[in-house]
């Protein structure tokens, strides 16, 4: 026979264990920058990642991608820069529910040139942002038109 008190204590324990093991959503990785992914624009995302300077447009940062993406669920994009001393490269899609798509912490053994694929809900600007070691924040943008959105069901 179980009393109500015992049962409550037990379920609290189970919830604690689940949280500890990382089964509860969003608590799996403490290091994952939740605030940055909640940001609604580029400046907020950069700030959440420890950037101090205001983002400025730069020709030394490049973003590659199609002009028109037929399928918004798979849009190949690349971020690159020719400048040395890059700390982080960010990939942002302006009109997605979560603006920040990906953050890459680059080291000296990596060329600051990365390619991946992102989802886009609708036609929008895509930003490549380079956060430099000296605190500068540089970006490049490109408009990608989407004929079929990738965020809906």
């Amino acid at each position, binding site marked *: 026979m179980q009393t109500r008190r015992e049962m409550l204590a037990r379920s609290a324990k189970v919830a604690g264990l689940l949280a500890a093991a990382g089964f509860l959503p969003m608590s*799996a990785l403490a290091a994952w920058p939740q605030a940055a992914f909640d940001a609604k624009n580029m400046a907020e995302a950069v700030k959440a990642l420890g950037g101090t300077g205001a983002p400025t447009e730069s020709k030394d940062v490049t973003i590659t991608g199609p002009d028109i993406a037929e399928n918004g669920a*798979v*849009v190949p994009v690349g971020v690159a820069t020719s400048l040395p001393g890059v700390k982080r490269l960010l990939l942002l899609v302006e009109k997605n529910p979560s603006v920040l*798509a990906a953050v890459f912490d680059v080291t000296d053994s990596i060329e600051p040139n990365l390619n991946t*694929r992102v989802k886009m809900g609708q036609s929008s600007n895509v930003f490549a942002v380079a956060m430099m070691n000296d605190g500068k924040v540089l970006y490049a943008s490109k408009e990608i038109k989407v004929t079929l959105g990738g965020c809906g069901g």
Partner: protein
Amino acid sequence: MADPMRIRAQAAGDKVTVRVLMSHEMETGQRKDSAGKVIPAWFIQEVTATHNGKPVLVAEWGPSVSKNPFLQFVIKGGKAGDKVAVTWTDNKGDKRTDEATVS
């Protein structure tokens, strides 16, 4: 356990181009199933890459990276025979590591 990643690492000069194809649903948490319930978010949050055991790249991803994510990067100072390993961790705490030899 998730399906294995496909990793291709090719040396050209002293640079190694690594292409990784991960197998993951990357559910955004925005979609609804046929009963109208929201499908909970399930996506890769962190990807780390090592070159001969030395960490070279850490990436944090959001749910807007495509399903079955693709990642390409270039390692400086690599050569054929080197080992490249990639690990991902998703928001449910699942992990997978795969290793490839540079050709």
